[in-house]
């Protein structure tokens, strides 16, 4: 801000701070903007009260308008009293909340899933909070987390084995999303480096792999994992269904991740490589200490973008018969007790997905701010 003391006789400039100033600057700067703003306000005015009324004020949770406990759809106010003005029937979500979260995981073992969720948060802490005490040790735990999670969820080492066909709901969605993203990230880095490699065999292999995977839709890979993979395996050998899907999802994500990171690598000026080589760093040292930290830093928005995409794409597994969060919802609708309550189920599933994807995008914003991923990076 410049010092304006030389212009005391003039009127103060139109306020650009404060609520009014902000509104004027962002919402009503010219007549087109003002019109759009008014239209949006009108739609929100129509939509929000209606949605709140449907989802909260006129909605049934445990009991219906007569105060009876809702045990099936016929107790929902809107079914019992179709002429009245009734909202959503959330009893289906409440009654089936366990299934939505864990699928058919045995309830006496479910503490293992909860512990895994808790440990996932612990594993994420060193990534989320930079100044956490003992970050170095926590990072080690983060790296070991997939193995710990696997043993906890599946079993072995004295834990009862819970076959994956009992897993379902958010558990499957998170396993596919978290494992898929976590494994695909290092794989993507290797593929990106490989594609830019001077060694023709490696670069050709990586290019072929990336282009092949990117050339087919995820659903094709899922079918490949489900239908074709068993044919290549020796007879009598069965790869677990969830593992097959995870392999397909990971390969898919790795190919996209590789291209995102390659984009970051392209942006690093030649001088950085030459400087690294001139101080005698080896190929891996150069990438680890100089190139990748910068490349990944500028790729963060795209990395998070593809990760969010993958997280949502996991719902495709319904087509090969795995019951993820959405699949469990559809299963609930196929129960004659609750049929017809599809709005409630889909709104709930959408909300859960939104919570996760929105957190991911906020995290990426935080990272961008923290690392100052702008053009003038390195200035600080």
């Amino acid at each position, binding site marked *: 801000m410049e010092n304006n003391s030389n212009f005391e006789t003039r009127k103060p400039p139109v306020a650009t701070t404060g609520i009014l100033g902000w509104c004027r600057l962002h919402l009503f700067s010219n007549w087109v903007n003002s019109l759009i703003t008014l239209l949006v306000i009108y739609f929100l005015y129509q939509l929000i009260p209606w949605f709140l009324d449907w989802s909260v004020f006129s909605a049934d949770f445990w009991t219906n308008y007569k105060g009876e406990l809702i045990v099936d759809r016929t107790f929902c106010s809107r079914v019992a009293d179709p002429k009245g003005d009734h909202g959503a029937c959330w009893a289906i979500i409440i009654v089936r909340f366990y299934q939505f979260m864990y699928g058919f995981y045995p309830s006496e073992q479910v503490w293992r899933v909860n512990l895994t969720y808790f440990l996932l948060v612990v594993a994420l802490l060193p990534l989320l909070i930079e100044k956490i005490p003992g970050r170095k040790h926590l990072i080690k735990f983060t790296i070991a987390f997939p193995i710990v999670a696997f043993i906890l969820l599946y079993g*072995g080492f004295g834990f009862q084995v819970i076959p994956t066909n009992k897993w379902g709901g958010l558990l499957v969605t998170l396993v596919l999303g978290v494992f898929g993203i976590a494994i695909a990230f290092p794989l993507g880095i290797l593929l990106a480096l490989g594609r830019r490699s001077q060694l023709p065999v490696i670069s050709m292999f990586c290019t072929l792999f990336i282009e092949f995977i990117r050339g087919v839709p995820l659903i094709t890979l899922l079918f490949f994992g489900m239908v074709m993979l068993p044919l290549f395996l020796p007879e009598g050998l069965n790869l677990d269904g969830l593992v097959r899907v995870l392999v397909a999802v990971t390969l898919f994500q790795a190919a996209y991740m590789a291209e995102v990171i390659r984009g970051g690598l392209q942006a690093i000026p030649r001088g950085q490589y030459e400087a690294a080589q001139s101080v005698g760093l080896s190929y891996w040292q150069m990438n680890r200490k100089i190139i990748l930290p910068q490349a990944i830093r500028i790729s963060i928005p795209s990395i998070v973008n593809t990760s969010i995409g993958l997280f949502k794409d996991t719902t495709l597994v319904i*087509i090969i018969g795995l019951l993820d969060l959405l699949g469990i919802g*559809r*299963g609930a609708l196929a*129960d004659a007790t609750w*049929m017809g309550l599809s709005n409630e189920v889909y709104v709930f599933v959408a909300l859960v997905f939104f919570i996760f994807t929105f957190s991911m995008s906020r995290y990426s914003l935080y990272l961008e701010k923290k690392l100052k991923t702008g053009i003038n990076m390195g200035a600080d």
Partner: protein
Amino acid sequence: MKKLLSIFAVVAFAYTANAGTLDDVKNRGFLKCGVTTGLIGFAAPDDAGNWAGFDVDVCRAVAAAIFGDSSKVEFTTTTGKSRFPTLASGEIDMLARNTTWTLSRDVNLGFEFVGVNYYDGQGFMIPSALGVDDATGLDGATVCIQTGTTTELNLADFFRANGIGYEALPIETNDEARENLFAGRCDVYTTDASGLSATRAQADDPDKWVVLPNIISKEPLGPLVRHGDHQWGDVVRWSLNTLIIAEELGINSSNVDDMKSSNIPEVLRVLGVEGGYGEMLELSNDFAYNIIKQVGNYSESFDRNIGPDTPLGIGRNLNALWTDGGILYAPPFR
């Protein structure tokens, strides 16, 4: 680390020994049965996470026959596309997933249909506002159709034979079809008549929808197993037959104990009081008793899951016993 790898190998690669399926199932201690990802009345998880439905009852009957305990089943959900590879690869022991018995599936895909638990036929459902009362009047309609099913081919045949055109809107699941139909994105939904009843029952106002009288195909739905293991096929076949025979003989889950002292010879044979029919199947002689006691007979299962008193409200029609005007018929138990 080595231990870790070996555990991973166990989860990733489940070995199935090449002994008979029945021995595998007995050694494992539970049956692995493939069902749909959810179809009203036929298979769906209840609030407690237990699977229930008309197809599920066939799985439960087989488990009751083998273990004397109908709860010893693990269900694997399959879709129209994944069901056959799942069965072929040995991930499941049997498939009870409203699957139509056709020549190519029986012969070319290498499966064995052990019988029919529901005689269905493909029909059409339209909004009553469309004002059409016969499917031949559907020229130019947009039709919601599940991909990878026999209904897709039947539809093409029917419209071609009648010289009328249609536009197909391919969809993957029953729910999707329902949403598309109710949202008006297609004029017609075609699938098996049982599925249409289920879809209609889910409408906010079922009267707004009509199921046309045209039935354009034979859809015998039944459980199936892999080719080549006849002993296992026999176990599943006679578990299914037991449900039907029990209805023929008037044995149900509530009178099955009294029937043990019946004076009708076939009842005594079925319940294992006389003869060694269970042993022939390498099961216990009271396998049929266990099925009837725990699952019930055919009509009990029908009424509980899809019958007139359920939201589906499907009548027995073709699925009535041969003595009641239907075509349901099981070979004699002797």
